């Protein structure tokens, strides 16, 4: 990775970073990728202002003029496995999902490349700048930072890789946030498969489904690692735990189901009845009798209510309708 020069933009009187690019065949790829990133306009990607020619060292060199983030990199070990660290992981996952959707691989995801700015927004820096040789996603030498490098990057000969190397590195980053002593399997070169039990110990404190998902990021088989967007969605779901609200309108009066009032039983005399319970993530049918339909779909105990629905009791002329609408706060950085 190239040298970093801190500068002041004298027109706008603000601090910027100039990153000197190392000459070589990779330069073209890096410049193309940086342009693609700029067009993406993700809130988690540092703004590229300009690409300039530097001559201060004699021969012409390219420099990227980047927004300077007023923030610090996330500190390994400074977090507990709780909601606050999940919120950070969610933002990292969102940022990586944004760039993967455009076919860009970061190549060097690690805590040192993840900053949190003054507004609490995660910024991922140094996209695609990791040193590599060869063309496209084929390389003959080490790229990235050893602990965060997926097993496939350690193979000899021509290596091909995709965005799943970022998923692996994301997993190691998640681990590093809460535990600074990596399991021996991860320190091995190349890293060895690490047992779920080992990781679960560090991730204890996160909800079980998320522990499983984070653990799957470490899979030796890249195909078995989840997509970053799947990870982001799963985390955001858990960030909203116990914060949903269902508005149930009965005879014109709104009733609320939430963390304080988790269960409701709806009775339509002689036609049917339905009991619903909120488990902190979903609203679920716990008992049903008679003719009851959700958005015209017949239901059984255990079904999850589909966001917003009309509950219909009975058939034909005796039908009664109850509206059931689920809302929640918006998860925002």
């Amino acid at each position, binding site marked *: 990775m190239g040298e970093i020069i801190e500068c002041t933009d004298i027109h706008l009187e*603000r601090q910027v970073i100039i990153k000197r690019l190392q000459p070589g065949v990779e330069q073209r790829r890096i410049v193309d990728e940086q342009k693609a990133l700029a067009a993406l306009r993700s809130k988690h990607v540092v703004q590229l202002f300009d690409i300039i020619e530097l001559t201060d060292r004699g021969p012409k060199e390219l420099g990227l003029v980047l927004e300077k983030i007023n923030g610090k990199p996330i500190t390994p070990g400074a977090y507990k496995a709780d909601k606050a660290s999940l919120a950070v992981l969610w933002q990292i996952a969102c940022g990586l999902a944004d760039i993967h959707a455009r076919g860009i691989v970061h190549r060097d995801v690690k805590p040192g490349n993840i900053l949190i700015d003054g507004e609490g927004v995660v910024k991922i820096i140094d996209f695609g700048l990791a040193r590599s040789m060869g063309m496209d996603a084929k390389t003959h030498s080490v790229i990235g930072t050893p602990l965060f490098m997926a097993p496939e990057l350690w193979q000899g000969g021509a290596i091909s890789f995709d965005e799943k190397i970022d998923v692996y590195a994301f997993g190691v980053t998640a681990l590093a946030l809460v535990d600074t002593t990596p399991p021996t399997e991860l320190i091995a070169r190349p890293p060895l498969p690490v047992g779920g039990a080992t990781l679960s110990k560090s991730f204890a404190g996160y909800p079980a489904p998320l522990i499983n998902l984070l653990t799957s990021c470490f899979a030796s088989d890249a195909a078995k690692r989840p997509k970053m967007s799947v990870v982001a969605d799963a985390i955001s779901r858990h960030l909203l735990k116990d914060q949903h609200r269902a*508005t149930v309108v009965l005879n014109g009066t709104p009733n609320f189901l939430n963390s304080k009032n988790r269960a409701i039983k709806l009775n339509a005399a002689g036609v049917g009845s339905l009991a619903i319970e909120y488990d902190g993530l979903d609203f679920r049918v716990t008992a049903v009798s008679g003719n009851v339909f959700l958005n015209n*779909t017949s239901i059984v105990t255990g079904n999850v209510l*589909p966001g917003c629905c009309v509950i219909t009791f009975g058939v034909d002329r005796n039908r009664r309708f109850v509206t059931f609408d689920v809302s929640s706060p918006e998860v925002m950085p």
Partner: protein
Amino acid sequence: MKAGDVVSDRYVVQSHFASGGMQDVYLATDKLLNTNVALKTPQAGQADKRFARSAKFAARVNHHNVAKTLDYVEEGNQRFLIEEFVVGENLELKLSRFGALDPHLGARVLHHLAKGIAASHHAGVVHRDLKPSNVIAEDGVNLHELKITDFGIATLTEEVFDEAAKDGDLTRSTSGTIRGALPYMAPEMMFRKPGDHPDKPSDIWSLGAMMFRILSGEYPFGVYLDAAVNVKNKTRAAWPAFMTSNSQYKPLSLELQAVVEQCLNYDPASRPTADQIVKLCGELCYINVERHVGTIDHFIQNGYSGFATGDSGTVFFSMESAYGPRRPDAGRNGKIVYSKFPGTPRDRGHPIVVVD
């Protein structure tokens, strides 16, 4: 400037986009990064020094709910500010289609605007001219991206406001800039005396006035001189009945109205800060699911429910989901916006809002 003009060998003018009271805005292409940008240049007679200062102010704010300042160029005797551009339409234009936003989409708008204002206030930048036309959003009925633009405009308008205040009554000004700002202008700004410098709370009033308009479709105090008279006499429009007439929407509508009422407090010190509004918004429950546009096909069950078809297929809807001043029908009010939820044999559309 005209299409094809090149600034700084990098920005190619595509078209004239808008003219404010102080500057002209063009849509341009950044040749280097292959992106669309807004190119702003002061109108003749504007002091270059102030334009440069406004650019520096705007450049201090770095948040995704604020249009980013990308570059500043001086070329010959011309000055240009390059800003992030969102292909789409501003909130004023959205409102002309929507009339009023339903509380779920409205809550989202409030949340994002409060975030952007909070970030700029943290940076010590006050907008002073917040209004729907200064909020840009992408095309369509979703408001995923909302960005406040023209931070730094206060530097440009300062002199206009100072002059008007010196004449004794800002509300009598003939300046287009002042007239455009009046419907959303805080009382301490409207009736300021020379030397007064309304601060952050004036943005909060503007946010409240803007949200009143967004949620109700009406200006809280009217326009032009009416706005000044009504603000002075404390005669604000009432909240429309449609916001609370439907039990499904009433709870969220009331929560939003309460936030807006706090913003429209006549005592600047009693208004919530942007941070406090962000916190309140963080607790608001709203339906934040992708919106679709459809046209009503027909009604069934004596008009209790119906079907609508859009680019994403056909949905079933119940009239109990209808929200807004216009009641959906198969005629003039046949174009609706909704989110989709799984159902048989059709997904269910909800909320149902009539749009143009």
